């Protein structure tokens, strides 16, 4: 039987429609597959996802280890089956490793999924299943260097502040200290006391990533970069005569301790951390471009790190008044930065302008020590071109050789860095900053130090960085 014309046309339409629906369904299937494959772990670990907690009924939480295998956190089960989370180093890793109860913070929270997953050998798993025992969770091996962490903590002592160290060319976090600290073994018992207390204490706050401070003179790095961009080839020849106080319109800007730096060029002004010289550059800058540079350097933006952090704030508009400009370019005014962010900027400079994504977990291994998942260094992006990074490195080297960074000057290696003494309350001492890296030729370590109300960066913060450099670079 031959079909009529209308029938044939209808059949073609049916065919077309079927193809269309099939294509739609296949894309939906692919979409779902891609979601499971690429986002599965992330949503599993999402703080709003209640499912992970139930895994703890079947898996004994794995350990968190230092980069040499030292135990930083482990779960101990007594004869009656009660589990306790132990932190052998007490308060030393309190912020970065975090605690597992009440609630979860730090790596305990970030690595929750890995710690509660078990990739034990099949025979072990079947044995445990048959004997009705819990499975053994995987261990998380961090990038943290126990020795360096101890040195950083000792160097900071009882003062409030933070010390962070990272490998600029990989993004591995080597040490992260925040003080005042607390004992995660007792977090649950001491909860009232930890959450009460006065606000300057804020023991639970990880100052390294969540504390926001005025950047002080460390911000001159960014001002210098902007000035160099606007005056390529001629910036180094600009001259300034510093009398300790710089007058502009009806305003005056003082150098630290009113020191008169005398006649100086751009590199010397940077090395001396001369407020007057930098304040003079301010009104000359293209504020629009300056604001854009700050955004490019991750101000007002999300940071690529896995543990909770605060966003840094740069709030000066291109229409700002003179006083705000004078303040902002020397790192005062309304600008706020986290130590972690400051470390990322200095690390990018050390790494030729390329920022590596900072990371804390080197690999995940099963109870038998076999690697289950390896984390590799990854590039976040280019914060500045290589030439700019090299020019800044020269300026930062001068700081150590000739200027305020003399505390890290040594024959053993060449360091580069910038000090800062950030004013936050007229009646109080300044916050002491130091950001830097070493050795200049092939940077192995970048460090950021902040000591709250520590006075001058050169005399308080830089010596702490020196201890880390020495420990990490010298045999």
């Amino acid at each position: 039987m031959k079909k009529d014309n209308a029938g044939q046309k209808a059949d073609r339409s049916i065919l077309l429609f079927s193809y269309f629906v099939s294509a739609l369904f296949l894309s939906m299937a692919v979409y779902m597959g891609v979601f499971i494959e690429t986002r599965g772990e992330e949503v599993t670990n999402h703080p709003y996802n209640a499912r992970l907690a139930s895994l703890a009924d079947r898996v004994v939480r794995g350990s968190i280890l230092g980069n040499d295998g030292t135990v930083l956190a482990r779960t101990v089960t007594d004869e009656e089956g009660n589990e306790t989370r132990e932190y052998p180093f007490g308060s030393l890793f309190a912020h970065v490793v975090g605690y597992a109860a009440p609630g979860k913070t730090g790596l305990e929270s970030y690595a929750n999924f890995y710690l509660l997953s078990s990739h034990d050998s099949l025979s072990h798993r079947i044995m445990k299943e048959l004997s009705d025992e819990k499975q053994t969770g995987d261990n998380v091996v961090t990038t943290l260097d126990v020795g360096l962490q101890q040195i950083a903590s000792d160097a900071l002592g009882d003062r409030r502040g933070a010390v962070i160290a990272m490998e600029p060319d990989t993004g591995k976090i080597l040490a992260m200290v925040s003080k005042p600290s607390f004992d995660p073994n007792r977090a649950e018992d001491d909860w009232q006391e930890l959450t009460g207390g006065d606000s300057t204490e804020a023991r639970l706050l990880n100052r390294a990533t969540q504390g926001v401070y005025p950047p002080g003179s460390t911000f001159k790095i960014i001002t210098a970069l902007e000035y160099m961009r606007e005056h390529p080839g001629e910036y180094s020849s600009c001259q300034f005569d510093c009398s300790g106080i710089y007058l502009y319109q009806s305003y005056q800007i003082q150098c630290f301790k009113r020191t008169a730096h005398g006649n100086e060029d751009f590199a010397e002004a940077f090395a001396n951390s001369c407020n007057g010289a930098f304040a003079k550059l301010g009104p000359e800058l293209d504020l629009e471009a300056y604001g854009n540079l700050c955004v490019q350097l991750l101000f007002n933006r999300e940071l690529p790190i896995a543990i909770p952090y605060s966003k840094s704030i740069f709030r000066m508009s291109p229409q700002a008044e003179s006083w705000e400009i004078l303040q902002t370019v020397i790192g005062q005014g309304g600008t706020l930065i986290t130590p972690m962010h400051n470390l990322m900027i200095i690390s990018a400079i050390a790494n030729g302008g390329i920022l590596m994504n900072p990371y804390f977990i080197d690999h995940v291994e099963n109870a038998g020590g076999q690697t289950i998942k390896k984390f590799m260094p990854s590039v976040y992006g280019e914060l500045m071109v290589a030439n700019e990074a090299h020019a800044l490195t020269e300026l930062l080297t001068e700081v150590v050789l000739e200027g305020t960074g003399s505390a890290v000057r040594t024959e053993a290696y060449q360091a580069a860095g910038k000090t800062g003494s950030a004013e936050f309350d007229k009646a109080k001492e300044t916050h002491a900053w130091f950001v830097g890296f070493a050795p200049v030729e092939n940077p192995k370590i970048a460090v950021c130090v902040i000591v709250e109300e520590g006075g001058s960066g050169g005399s308080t913060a830089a010596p702490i960085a020196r201890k880390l450099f020495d420990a990490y670079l010298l045999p």
Partner: protein
Amino acid sequence: MTNLVAGISRYLIILLITIYTYYNFRFFSMKDEEGRNRAVRRQLICMFMLHFLANLVIFLNTDSRLLAAFYCAQLLFFAGYLSLYRLFYRNVSRLLLNNTCMLLCTSFIMLTRLNPNRAIRQFVIAALAAAVTLVIPFVIDRVWQLASIPWLYAALGLTLLLAVFFSGDTSYGARLSLHVGGFSVQPSEFVKISFVFFIAAMFYRSSTFKNVVLTTAAAALHVLLLTASKDLGGALIYFIAYLAMLFVATSNTIYLGLGLGGGAGASVMAYRLFPHVRRRVDAWTDPWKDVADSGYQTAQALFAIGTGGWFGVGLYQGMPEKIPVVDKDFLFAAVAEELGGLYALCLLLICLGCFLQFMLLAFRLQAMFYKQLAVGLGTVYITQVFLTIGGVTKFIPLTGVTLPFVSYGGSSMFATFIIFGVIQGLYILKENEEEDDEEG
């Protein structure tokens, strides 16, 4: 020990449904009767093994004799349904029959795990619907006047929709159901079918411009009534079914273009007019922005799918109860979480397979009325599948539609049985006709 059995069953179940799905598509490229029969037999073996394993896990977890008895009742039902259908109708589409059972089997397993009382209720409705709709192929074969009463379908459909609009109960912001003698019925599930019959009968008369306008006006009235009751998911399904049937009847791309343009315009209007549409579109673009509120449903579904991964966490090991309306709109997410992403993908492919069978049948049928019926019902079915699974997986914004044969809900279950019954009727009609041709 329970965990060990559950762990092994988890993988076996996925293997079984994969084999089942494979034969679902392999079937089409088989020419000989022998091979086809072997394929459907193997499908049934897979289904019954899967059904057994899942119920074993259910029993180990609940230790409930009632549920063991429930399993036996399901077995009896499947065996009875399959054999009765084949006894009454020699030329039944066995593939479609298997798919019906496989989808029901998934539904019973998941509902039992989520809420045994609802599972039993659903089972009773399914058994009842199966028994009643057994007669449909007979009606299709004998009552040839079905094509000659378009306005009766329209009157019936519009009356029911009007009744819902005036005295329906509201759930989740939409007027959906009527109370009839202690039962809550969703008429729009059934009007879908009368709607398709109406359009098929109209286009069967002629596809002249005047007739197209008349049909469009009546169809638009259906859609508008649904919109007025705020059943936007329903309105969308009717609209797409109408477009597909119009396209097949006229093969006119201008009509199709106009229809799609109108649909796009209406979507923009809906977005502007209805706050809950805006909420859903926002939740779709970024459910994580407001996880606690507007993005809650989608985020919970994605948590379930993401945590389940490819192989699922196993029955009773997940937290599907965290997902809102999990036994209806979000059952697919619960399947993905506990039975696995692969199982869910197989389910998606089985649904697509059903649709393709519908279309293949439409292709083979010569009478325009029957062709249109197959296309229309197929479109109603697959649009519903697309809206649910798409919404749950965040492929498209949520519409709040149930997955036919799988989600909890009596009206939906009954209506889907009718749709599959009609298709079986058409299939049997065609097979008998070809047999007669060969003999004659």
